[in-house]
């Protein structure tokens, strides 16, 4: 099929611009020990339900009570559930130019690629929410202090799994 020169030029320009970033994603590995971090984030996995009894968990999860209370208050304003049971938590540095993983659960985890500091504070990030080996959603976001990101995930039993990420 013959493509017109202008169209070819347009597509060439665009894909030429995009290709380095694609390559960067493919080659992302773990950082060297000297790698600098852009931020430290906390990932929380909640089970939201109207049932007050939390699901049985082998591992005990401890979080700052004030942070947890504030998060639950915010979650209630978005998701129509009365109880938000914290079942997993992971604090993780986010490294420049390398992928970071927030893994409060191996069943639902978050890949974070830092895109550097945001103009008015916080960090530009590319997020990928994974369930097992399937990526559920990709997002470009800005993480700012006291402004968490809520990811409403799959339903489970009588409620729903919700992943929360915030700057620590």
């Amino acid at each position, binding site marked *: 099929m013959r493509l017109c020169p202008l169209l070819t030029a347009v597509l060439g320009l665009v894909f030429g611009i995009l290709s380095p970033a694609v390559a960067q994603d493919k080659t*992302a590995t773990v950082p060297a020990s000297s790698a600098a971090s852009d931020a430290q984030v906390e990932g929380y996995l909640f089970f939201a339900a109207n049932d007050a009894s939390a699901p049985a968990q082998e591992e005990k999860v401890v979080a700052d009570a004030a942070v947890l209370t504030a998060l639950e208050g915010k979650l209630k304003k978005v998701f129509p559930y009365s109880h938000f049971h914290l079942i997993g938590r992971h604090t993780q540095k986010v490294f420049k130019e390398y992928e970071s993983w927030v893994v409060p659960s191996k069943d639902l985890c978050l890949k974070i690629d830092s895109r550097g500091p945001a103009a008015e504070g916080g960090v530009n990030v590319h997020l990928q929410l994974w369930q097992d080996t399937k990526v559920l959603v990709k997002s470009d976001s800005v993480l700012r202090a006291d402004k968490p990101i809520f990811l409403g995930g799959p339903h489970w039993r009588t409620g729903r799994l919700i992943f929360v990420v915030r700057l620590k």
Partner: protein
Amino acid sequence: MNATPPPDDFNEELMTRWIDGQLTPAELEAVERALAADPHLSLEMESARHVGSLLREHLPAALEPASPEFFTSRIMEEVQGAPVLALLPPSKDRRIGLMSWLRQPWFAPLASASVVALLFLAANGSRSGAGSTEVARVYAPDPNVVATAFYSEEAGATVIDLQGLEAVPADREIRAFDVADSGPAAPGQPRVFHAANDPDRALLVMAPDTVDGPRFRELN
């Protein structure tokens, strides 16, 4: 090369070089004569040159897109949402037949979408809000999943809501942990996650290759 190319030489290559300002004086003179004699041709050439100038004007010399994964979805969204530009009526003049792609239904939306997508990409890098967490774009690879992003003023949080996901089977246990900062690991080596309350206790090991998704081994 003829000093005054005949109209049949009015091909795509000539038009591209005209857009880029690379014609010889003789070619330019011939083109201008042809344009003056044919209003349809003139309009189409101007339209093509306009697209080219928009691209040059808004394309930064070095642009790192926020995420290349979103390119296709952005283009498709813009194609679906872009108004179809008024297209010229077909010309009866066969001399411009070689540029008939300009009148193809897909050209105007695609050109518009390309420009808009590039503008979006260019603007996205410096986009910032008034102190709020922002979601520039969300993309769910599974076509059955609808991803919606919004900022909740009431909650002071960005919300990414996923609808259409398969529910996790009720009999499946969700294995969750309280995990400490994993710290850096050597290149090519598995990443080990330790318990927050016991730095010596390894909980999970993640395989180093995550291109096809994370693969974990749980440690008891």
